[in-house]
């Protein structure tokens, strides 16, 4: 099959249909491939996927030393820097490499969901004031957090320990950390491996949303697909929830920049030759590989602490508006840009998930105890104005995708195209017509993040559900959004 790309070049990869929702680019498609590439998509999404260079990038990833099994592309895959967004690759920790490009610039970009005791009818009278208060209490855009300027020692503690410092300062509840992926702390983190520049960029960014498609959203559970799992997660129809989508801010970007540069210079020493420089990598057990892994884990800890600090701000806002009824319980927090060492099929692998979410099933030991009967929660944020989804991890995903699923809708238009297609004031009016309250720094930025600029999240979620990568549990309808 020939796939036409957006710049008119042809991406000629013969594909084999494994099932109605899985296409495979076999290992014979290009001489330098070490493993096949498997793409999860229906026909509609497939036609979107072949418009950019996602598949060529997935094939490039399939050439990395030590890559095992298959490289997987989720249904929301799109072209990234070197490694496609929506890609999953597992590399042997003894024979393989680690690649900062396989994690991405926004290390541990992720999503956390908080559930209130409020129903929509009780929340609605104060909803507009709540969204406004959230926008005033949580810095967005390229903003800093003047309330929390960390000392060098404090920042190192966050990098090394994740949320412990926040717990001491009353910015986290004891029950928050166990309900965060990895307990909100990767033990391999070493603040000493994070550059001075990265720390300078991050020291006053804890508790901030950032820009792009990051947001804080007030939602209502408007449909439950699997009542047993919804009950396990503490979710019910008509309930008010809060979704936080952000990452490691400038600190994570600088860590990625620093180590892409270092590994680009180190590859020749290890005799590694790649089709794309942005995939720069080093053997996992080399000094460069270990330093990046330690710095990446530290940036991941910072991102979890960032979402925790935003949680604390949101709790204060809800308490001001609703008193004790506005209590927000953390359901879970998941990363979708990260590399983690995991056991798969008896092998120790460094699983790179870039724009992909871990989705462990009921029997996995890392699934939190309260969720063992149903699998770990997974959150798939929609675009502004469209629904988000709560999914549950499946045991079957371990063999289908190294225990991974999609991460969101993914952009379908450039920012300038989105602005040309629909001006910001029209986007705002349309959202208001749907009853969605919006707080955004500018109309221009609102236009960039218009729902039409993104792929159809319902279709993406439908594919992962049907393919068995995760199960649909609930749909969350937006009521008010604070845009980054």
């Amino acid at each position: 099959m020939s796939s036409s790309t957006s710049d008119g070049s042809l991406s000629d990869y013969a594909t084999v249909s494994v099932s109605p929702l899985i296409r495979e680019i076999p290992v014979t498609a290009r001489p330098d491939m070490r493993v096949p590439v498997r793409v999860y998509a229906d026909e509609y999404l497939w036609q979107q996927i072949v418009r950019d260079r996602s598949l060529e990038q997935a094939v490039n990833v399939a050439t990395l030393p030590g890559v095992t099994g298959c490289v997987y592309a989720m249904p929301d895959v799109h072209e990234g820097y070197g490694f496609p967004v929506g890609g999953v690759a597992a590399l042997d920790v003894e024979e393989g490499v680690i690649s900062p490009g396989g994690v991405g610039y926004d290390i541990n970009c992720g999503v956390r969901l908080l559930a209130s005791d409020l129903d929509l009818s009780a929340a609605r009278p104060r909803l507009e004031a709540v969204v406004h208060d959230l926008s005033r209490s949580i810095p967005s855009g390229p903003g800093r957090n003047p309330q929390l300027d960390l000392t060098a020692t404090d920042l190192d503690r966050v990098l090394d320990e994740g949320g412990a410092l926040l717990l001491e300062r009353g910015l986290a509840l004891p029950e928050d950390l166990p309900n965060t992926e990895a307990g909100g702390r990767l033990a391999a983190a070493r603040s000493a491996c994070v550059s001075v520049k990265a720390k300078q960029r991050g020291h006053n960014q804890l508790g901030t949303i950032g820009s792009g498609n990051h947001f804080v959203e007030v939602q209502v559970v408007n449909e439950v697909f699997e009542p047993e799992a919804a009950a396990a997660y503490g979710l019910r129809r008509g309930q008010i929830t809060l979704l936080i989508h952000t990452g490691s801010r400038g600190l994570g970007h600088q860590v990625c920049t620093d180590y892409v540069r270092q590994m680009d210079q180190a590859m020749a020493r290890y005799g590694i030759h790649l089709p794309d420089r942005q995939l720069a990598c080093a053997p996992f057990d080399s000094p460069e590989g270990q330093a990046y892994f330690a710095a990446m884990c530290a940036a991941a800890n910072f991102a979890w602490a960032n979402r925790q600090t935003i949680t604390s701000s949101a709790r204060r806002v809800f308490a001001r508006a609703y008193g004790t009824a506005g209590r927000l319980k953390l359901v879970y927090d998941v990363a979708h840009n990260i590399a983690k060492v995991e056991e798969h099929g008896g092998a120790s692998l460094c699983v790179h998930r870039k724009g992909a979410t871990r989705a462990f099933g009921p029997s996995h030991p890392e699934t939190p105890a309260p969720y063992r009967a149903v699998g770990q929660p997974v959150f798939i944020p929609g675009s502004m104005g469209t629904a988000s989804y709560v999914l549950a991890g499946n045991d079957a995903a371990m063999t289908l995708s190294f225990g991974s699923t999609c991460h969101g809708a993914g952009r379908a238009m450039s920012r300038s195209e989105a602005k040309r297609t629909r001006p910001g004031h029209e986007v705002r009016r349309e959202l208001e017509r749907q009853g969605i309250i919006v707080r955004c720094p500018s109309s221009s930025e609102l236009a960039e993040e218009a729902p039409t600029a993104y792929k159809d999240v319902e279709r993406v979620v439908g594919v992962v559900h049907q393919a068995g990568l995760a199960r649909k549990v609930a749909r969350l309808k937006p009521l008010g959004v604070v845009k980054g």
Partner: protein
Amino acid sequence: MTATPLLPAHEMRQHTSEIELHVRAGSLGDLLAEAGRALAEVELIKADCVPGGPVRTIRVTSSDREALLVDWLNELIFLADFDRWVALDFSINLAEETEVRAGASGVTLEWGLSRVKAATFHRLRVEDVPGGLEANVILDV
């Protein structure tokens, strides 16, 4: 016949979550200065800024000229994110394949900054052409 040196110029193309800079100039030094000006155009949403204040010295070393372009832009991005200082005007004192030394004047802003997060190696290209050099570099926004 010697080609006429290219005048520094740049174009920008937007993709899904990135901006592609296309830059051309008669020399490597002029190319780096033009790439810096193009970055400032993206960083400053409101573009009517006059450079002023003390001239800052910027020095970057890299493994080759492609990496030098990426590292140069990433240094400017770091200064914008950390210091809120956007370099606008450049005086290139030395530009070799693996090193650039420059003086730069710019503006410090609290608001109105754009959101360039990194310059990448993705589809990076620096090529000799008649009259100078051409380059493509992708910015993460």
